Protein backbone atom coordinates (compact mmCIF):
# COMPACT_ATOMS: atom_id res chain seq x y z
CA UNK A 1 0.00 0.00 0.00
CA UNK A 2 0.96 3.68 0.10
CA UNK A 3 3.65 4.65 2.61
CA UNK A 4 1.96 7.28 4.78
CA UNK A 5 5.17 9.08 5.77
CA UNK A 6 6.20 9.77 2.19
CA UNK A 7 2.64 10.43 1.08
CA UNK A 8 2.21 13.20 3.66
CA UNK A 9 5.71 14.50 2.98
CA UNK A 10 4.65 14.95 -0.63
CA UNK A 11 1.28 16.35 0.40
CA UNK A 12 2.91 19.00 2.59
CA UNK A 13 5.45 19.94 -0.09
CA UNK A 14 2.97 22.11 -1.96
CA UNK A 15 2.28 24.17 1.17
CA UNK A 16 5.83 25.47 1.61
CA UNK A 17 6.83 29.16 1.61
CA UNK A 18 7.26 29.18 -2.17
CA UNK A 19 4.26 26.97 -2.67
CA UNK A 20 2.55 26.50 -6.04
CA UNK A 21 -0.76 26.09 -4.19
CA UNK A 22 -1.54 29.82 -4.43
CA UNK A 23 -0.95 30.00 -8.17
CA UNK A 24 -2.72 26.71 -8.80
CA UNK A 25 -5.75 27.72 -6.75
CA UNK A 26 -5.98 31.11 -8.47
CA UNK A 27 -5.85 29.45 -11.90
CA UNK A 28 -8.70 27.14 -11.00
CA UNK A 29 -10.67 30.10 -9.56
CA UNK A 30 -10.61 31.46 -13.11
CA UNK A 31 -11.66 28.04 -14.49
CA UNK A 32 -14.51 27.76 -11.94
CA UNK A 33 -15.82 31.19 -12.94
CA UNK A 34 -15.47 30.37 -16.64
CA UNK A 35 -17.35 27.07 -16.29
CA UNK A 36 -20.17 28.77 -14.42
CA UNK A 37 -20.49 31.32 -17.21
CA UNK A 38 -20.69 28.43 -19.67
CA UNK A 39 -23.71 26.99 -17.87
CA UNK A 40 -22.02 24.26 -15.81
CA UNK A 41 -23.41 23.60 -12.34
CA UNK A 42 -21.14 23.15 -9.31
CA UNK A 43 -21.08 19.34 -9.57
CA UNK A 44 -20.17 19.45 -13.26
CA UNK A 45 -17.45 22.03 -12.63
CA UNK A 46 -15.80 19.96 -9.90
CA UNK A 47 -16.32 16.77 -11.92
CA UNK A 48 -14.48 18.47 -14.81
CA UNK A 49 -11.56 19.56 -12.61
CA UNK A 50 -11.19 16.10 -11.02
CA UNK A 51 -11.43 14.14 -14.27
CA UNK A 52 -9.45 16.44 -16.56
CA UNK A 53 -7.04 18.15 -14.18
CA UNK A 54 -5.20 20.06 -16.90
CA UNK A 55 -5.77 23.78 -17.37
CA UNK A 56 -5.21 24.12 -21.13
CA UNK A 57 -7.43 21.09 -21.76
CA UNK A 58 -10.24 22.58 -19.67
CA UNK A 59 -9.89 25.90 -21.50
CA UNK A 60 -10.04 24.18 -24.90
CA UNK A 61 -13.13 22.22 -23.83
CA UNK A 62 -14.81 25.44 -22.68
CA UNK A 63 -13.95 27.30 -25.90
CA UNK A 64 -15.04 24.34 -28.05
CA UNK A 65 -18.37 24.16 -26.24
CA UNK A 66 -18.88 27.89 -26.74
CA UNK A 67 -18.69 27.49 -30.52
CA UNK A 68 -20.80 24.30 -30.47
CA UNK A 69 -18.04 21.90 -31.52
CA UNK A 70 -18.80 18.16 -31.83
CA UNK A 71 -17.50 15.63 -29.30
CA UNK A 72 -14.97 14.37 -31.86
CA UNK A 73 -13.68 17.90 -32.37
CA UNK A 74 -13.40 18.40 -28.63
CA UNK A 75 -11.53 15.10 -28.28
CA UNK A 76 -9.02 15.96 -31.02
CA UNK A 77 -8.50 19.56 -29.84
CA UNK A 78 -7.93 18.49 -26.23
CA UNK A 79 -5.74 15.57 -27.23
CA UNK A 80 -3.46 17.82 -29.31
CA UNK A 81 -3.26 20.48 -26.58
CA UNK A 82 -2.60 17.95 -23.83
CA UNK A 83 -0.19 15.76 -25.82
CA UNK A 84 2.58 17.60 -23.94
CA UNK A 85 1.68 15.34 -21.00
CA UNK A 86 3.24 12.39 -22.86
CA UNK A 87 6.88 13.62 -22.81
CA UNK A 88 6.27 14.94 -19.29
CA UNK A 89 5.24 11.43 -18.18
CA UNK A 90 8.16 9.75 -19.94
CA UNK A 91 10.62 12.18 -18.37
CA UNK A 92 9.20 11.64 -14.88
CA UNK A 93 8.10 8.05 -14.35
CA UNK A 94 11.50 6.37 -14.92
CA UNK A 95 12.66 8.38 -11.88
CA UNK A 96 9.95 6.78 -9.74
CA UNK A 97 9.76 3.20 -10.98
CA UNK A 98 10.96 0.60 -8.51
CA UNK A 99 10.53 -3.16 -8.64
CA UNK A 100 9.13 -3.28 -5.08
CA UNK A 101 6.18 -1.08 -6.02
CA UNK A 102 2.96 -2.40 -7.62
CA UNK A 103 2.17 -1.16 -11.13
CA UNK A 104 -1.31 0.08 -10.23
CA UNK A 105 0.31 2.99 -8.40
CA UNK A 106 1.89 4.20 -11.64
CA UNK A 107 -1.28 3.79 -13.70
CA UNK A 108 -3.35 5.49 -11.03
CA UNK A 109 -0.96 8.34 -10.27
CA UNK A 110 -0.27 9.32 -13.89
CA UNK A 111 -3.52 11.26 -13.64
CA UNK A 112 -1.66 13.75 -11.40
CA UNK A 113 0.73 14.78 -14.18
CA UNK A 114 0.33 18.52 -14.62
CA UNK A 115 2.88 21.30 -14.85
CA UNK A 116 2.94 22.35 -11.18
CA UNK A 117 3.14 18.85 -9.68
CA UNK A 118 5.64 17.78 -12.34
CA UNK A 119 7.97 20.70 -11.62
CA UNK A 120 7.79 20.12 -7.84
CA UNK A 121 8.62 16.44 -8.29
CA UNK A 122 11.47 17.23 -10.68
CA UNK A 123 12.93 19.65 -8.13
CA UNK A 124 12.64 17.31 -5.14
CA UNK A 125 12.98 13.72 -6.31
CA UNK A 126 16.66 13.42 -5.39
CA UNK A 127 15.81 13.95 -1.71
CA UNK A 128 13.49 10.92 -1.68
CA UNK A 129 14.65 7.27 -1.77
CA UNK A 130 13.72 5.80 -5.14
CA UNK A 131 11.61 3.06 -3.54
CA UNK A 132 9.26 5.66 -2.01
CA UNK A 133 9.20 8.30 -4.73
CA UNK A 134 5.88 7.07 -6.10
CA UNK A 135 4.23 7.51 -2.67
CA UNK A 136 5.72 11.00 -2.43
CA UNK A 137 4.40 11.75 -5.93
CA UNK A 138 0.89 10.54 -5.03
CA UNK A 139 1.05 12.93 -2.04
CA UNK A 140 2.02 15.88 -4.26
CA UNK A 141 -0.67 15.01 -6.78
CA UNK A 142 -3.38 14.62 -4.13
CA UNK A 143 -2.54 17.99 -2.59
CA UNK A 144 -2.47 19.71 -5.99
CA UNK A 145 -5.82 18.12 -6.83
CA UNK A 146 -7.33 19.36 -3.54
CA UNK A 147 -6.05 22.90 -4.27
CA UNK A 148 -7.60 22.69 -7.76
CA UNK A 149 -10.98 21.53 -6.44
CA UNK A 150 -10.93 24.28 -3.82
CA UNK A 151 -10.09 26.89 -6.49
CA UNK A 152 -12.87 25.65 -8.79
CA UNK A 153 -15.38 25.83 -5.93
CA UNK A 154 -14.31 29.37 -4.98
CA UNK A 155 -14.33 30.55 -8.62
CA UNK A 156 -17.75 29.05 -9.23
CA UNK A 157 -19.21 30.46 -6.02
CA UNK A 158 -17.85 33.99 -6.42
CA UNK A 159 -17.90 34.35 -10.22
CA UNK A 160 -20.30 37.30 -10.13
CA UNK A 161 -17.81 39.26 -8.01
CA UNK A 162 -14.93 38.71 -10.46
CA UNK A 163 -14.78 41.55 -12.97
CA UNK A 164 -12.74 41.52 -16.18
CA UNK A 165 -9.64 43.12 -14.61
CA UNK A 166 -9.58 40.52 -11.85
CA UNK A 167 -10.05 37.68 -14.37
CA UNK A 168 -7.14 39.09 -16.37
CA UNK A 169 -5.00 39.18 -13.25
CA UNK A 170 -5.84 35.54 -12.56
CA UNK A 171 -5.11 34.61 -16.17
CA UNK A 172 -1.55 36.06 -16.22
CA UNK A 173 -0.70 34.49 -12.88
CA UNK A 174 -0.46 30.99 -14.29
CA UNK A 175 2.11 31.62 -17.09
CA UNK A 176 4.19 33.91 -14.84
CA UNK A 177 4.33 31.27 -12.11
CA UNK A 178 5.26 28.50 -14.54
CA UNK A 179 7.84 30.72 -16.23
CA UNK A 180 9.50 31.39 -12.86
CA UNK A 181 9.44 27.66 -12.07
CA UNK A 182 11.01 26.83 -15.44
CA UNK A 183 13.72 29.48 -14.99
CA UNK A 184 14.34 28.13 -11.48
CA UNK A 185 14.63 24.58 -12.83
CA UNK A 186 17.17 25.58 -15.49
CA UNK A 187 20.23 24.37 -13.63
CA UNK A 188 21.81 22.17 -16.31
CA UNK A 189 22.89 23.04 -19.85
CA UNK A 190 20.35 20.78 -21.65
CA UNK A 191 17.42 22.02 -19.55
CA UNK A 192 18.46 25.68 -19.87
CA UNK A 193 18.82 25.29 -23.64
CA UNK A 194 15.46 23.50 -23.86
CA UNK A 195 13.72 26.34 -22.03
CA UNK A 196 15.44 29.05 -24.08
CA UNK A 197 14.88 27.40 -27.46
CA UNK A 198 11.30 26.44 -26.57
CA UNK A 199 10.50 30.02 -25.53
CA UNK A 200 11.89 31.53 -28.74
CA UNK A 201 10.80 28.84 -31.18
CA UNK A 202 7.27 28.31 -29.80
CA UNK A 203 5.76 31.64 -30.90
CA UNK A 204 7.59 31.50 -34.26
CA UNK A 205 6.21 28.06 -35.12
CA UNK A 206 2.79 29.18 -33.90
CA UNK A 207 2.68 31.67 -36.79
CA UNK A 208 2.88 28.76 -39.27
CA UNK A 209 1.01 26.02 -37.42
CA UNK A 210 -1.08 27.13 -34.44
CA UNK A 211 -2.49 23.67 -33.67
CA UNK A 212 0.80 21.79 -33.74
CA UNK A 213 3.15 24.55 -32.59
CA UNK A 214 3.65 23.27 -29.04
CA UNK A 215 4.37 19.69 -30.07
CA UNK A 216 6.59 20.70 -32.99
CA UNK A 217 8.54 23.10 -30.78
CA UNK A 218 8.94 20.39 -28.17
CA UNK A 219 10.36 17.91 -30.67
CA UNK A 220 12.54 20.38 -32.62
CA UNK A 221 13.68 22.53 -29.69
CA UNK A 222 14.12 19.58 -27.33
CA UNK A 223 16.17 17.63 -29.89
CA UNK A 224 18.44 20.63 -30.63
CA UNK A 225 18.95 21.22 -26.89
CA UNK A 226 19.64 17.52 -26.32
CA UNK A 227 22.20 17.31 -29.13
CA UNK A 228 24.02 20.49 -28.04
CA UNK A 229 23.90 19.38 -24.40
CA UNK A 230 25.29 15.93 -25.20
CA UNK A 231 28.03 17.49 -27.36
CA UNK A 232 29.10 19.89 -24.59
CA UNK A 233 29.03 17.18 -21.90
CA UNK A 234 31.05 14.75 -24.03
Amino acid at each position, binding site marked *: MINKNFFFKGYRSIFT*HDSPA*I*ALTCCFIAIGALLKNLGFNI*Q*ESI*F*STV*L*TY*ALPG*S*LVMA*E*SMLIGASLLNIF*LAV*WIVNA*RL*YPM*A*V*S*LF*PLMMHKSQPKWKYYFS*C*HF*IAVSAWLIMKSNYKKIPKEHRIDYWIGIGSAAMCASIFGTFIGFSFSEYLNK*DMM*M*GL*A*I*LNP*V*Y*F*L*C*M*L*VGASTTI*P*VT*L*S*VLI*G*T*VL*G*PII*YLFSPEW*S*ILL*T*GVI*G*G*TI*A*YLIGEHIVS
Partner: protein
Amino acid sequence: MSANIIYAILVTSIATFLSRILGVITSQGITETSKIFRWFNCLAYATLAALIARTIIFPAGVLSDASYLSRLLVVLLCLGIFFITKKNFVYPTIFSAILMAVLNNYF
Protein backbone atom coordinates in the same frame (compact mmCIF):
# COMPACT_ATOMS: atom_id res chain seq x y z
CA MET B 1 -26.50 17.22 -14.89
CA SER B 2 -26.80 18.05 -18.57
CA ALA B 3 -25.91 15.07 -20.78
CA ASN B 4 -23.99 17.22 -23.27
CA ILE B 5 -21.80 18.68 -20.57
CA ILE B 6 -21.14 15.25 -19.06
CA TYR B 7 -20.17 13.84 -22.46
CA ALA B 8 -17.87 16.81 -23.09
CA ILE B 9 -16.18 16.32 -19.71
CA LEU B 10 -15.76 12.57 -20.30
CA VAL B 11 -14.33 13.09 -23.79
CA THR B 12 -11.94 15.75 -22.45
CA SER B 13 -10.78 13.50 -19.62
CA ILE B 14 -10.22 10.52 -21.94
CA ALA B 15 -8.22 12.67 -24.39
CA THR B 16 -6.11 13.95 -21.48
CA PHE B 17 -5.62 10.61 -19.76
CA LEU B 18 -4.53 8.98 -23.02
CA SER B 19 -1.28 10.98 -23.15
CA ARG B 20 -0.60 10.31 -19.48
CA ILE B 21 -1.13 6.55 -19.60
CA LEU B 22 0.84 6.19 -22.85
CA GLY B 23 3.67 8.04 -21.13
CA VAL B 24 3.65 5.57 -18.23
CA ILE B 25 3.58 2.56 -20.57
CA THR B 26 6.52 3.96 -22.55
CA SER B 27 8.41 4.70 -19.31
CA GLN B 28 8.54 1.02 -18.37
CA GLY B 29 11.38 0.27 -20.76
CA ILE B 30 13.40 3.41 -19.99
CA THR B 31 16.03 3.92 -17.30
CA GLU B 32 16.81 7.34 -15.85
CA THR B 33 20.41 7.21 -17.06
CA SER B 34 19.57 6.35 -20.67
CA LYS B 35 19.96 8.71 -23.61
CA ILE B 36 16.29 8.43 -24.52
CA PHE B 37 15.33 9.57 -21.02
CA ARG B 38 17.57 12.63 -21.35
CA TRP B 39 16.07 13.33 -24.78
CA PHE B 40 12.51 13.11 -23.44
CA ASN B 41 13.54 15.40 -20.57
CA CYS B 42 14.63 18.07 -23.09
CA LEU B 43 11.41 17.50 -25.07
CA ALA B 44 9.30 18.04 -21.96
CA TYR B 45 11.05 21.26 -20.94
CA ALA B 46 10.98 22.67 -24.49
CA THR B 47 7.28 21.80 -24.79
CA LEU B 48 6.47 23.53 -21.51
CA ALA B 49 8.49 26.61 -22.47
CA ALA B 50 6.64 26.77 -25.80
CA LEU B 51 3.28 26.44 -24.04
CA ILE B 52 4.09 29.28 -21.63
CA ALA B 53 5.48 31.53 -24.38
CA ARG B 54 2.37 30.92 -26.46
CA THR B 55 0.09 31.65 -23.50
CA ILE B 56 1.80 35.01 -23.01
CA ILE B 57 2.31 36.07 -26.64
CA PHE B 58 -0.76 34.49 -28.27
CA PRO B 59 -3.18 34.08 -25.38
CA ALA B 60 -6.68 32.64 -25.55
CA GLY B 61 -9.64 33.85 -23.52
CA VAL B 62 -9.70 36.95 -21.36
CA LEU B 63 -5.94 37.55 -21.55
CA SER B 64 -6.17 38.24 -25.28
CA ASP B 65 -7.88 41.56 -24.44
CA ALA B 66 -4.74 42.83 -22.68
CA SER B 67 -2.18 44.64 -24.86
CA TYR B 68 1.13 43.03 -25.85
CA LEU B 69 2.96 45.79 -24.02
CA SER B 70 1.16 45.23 -20.71
CA ARG B 71 1.71 41.45 -20.89
CA LEU B 72 5.39 41.90 -21.72
CA LEU B 73 5.82 44.49 -18.98
CA VAL B 74 4.21 42.22 -16.38
CA VAL B 75 6.36 39.22 -17.36
CA LEU B 76 9.64 41.17 -17.42
CA LEU B 77 8.98 42.91 -14.10
CA CYS B 78 7.95 39.64 -12.48
CA LEU B 79 11.09 37.90 -13.72
CA GLY B 80 13.07 40.78 -12.20
CA ILE B 81 11.27 40.32 -8.88
CA PHE B 82 11.91 36.57 -9.09
CA PHE B 83 15.67 37.16 -9.21
CA ILE B 84 15.65 40.01 -6.66
CA THR B 85 13.78 37.85 -4.14
CA LYS B 86 16.33 35.03 -4.58
CA LYS B 87 14.07 32.91 -6.74
CA ASN B 88 10.96 33.02 -4.58
CA PHE B 89 7.93 31.93 -6.63
CA VAL B 90 5.18 33.53 -4.58
CA TYR B 91 6.10 37.25 -4.77
CA PRO B 92 6.30 37.54 -8.58
CA THR B 93 3.18 35.40 -8.97
CA ILE B 94 1.02 37.57 -6.71
CA PHE B 95 2.57 40.76 -8.11
CA SER B 96 1.74 39.65 -11.68
CA ALA B 97 -1.99 39.38 -10.91
CA ILE B 98 -2.13 42.77 -9.18
CA LEU B 99 -0.03 44.55 -11.83
CA MET B 100 -2.03 43.08 -14.71
CA ALA B 101 -5.34 44.10 -13.13
CA VAL B 102 -4.03 47.64 -12.46
CA LEU B 103 -2.47 48.06 -15.93
CA ASN B 104 -5.63 46.87 -17.63
CA ASN B 105 -7.74 49.19 -15.55
CA TYR B 106 -5.73 52.32 -16.27
CA PHE B 107 -4.24 51.77 -19.75
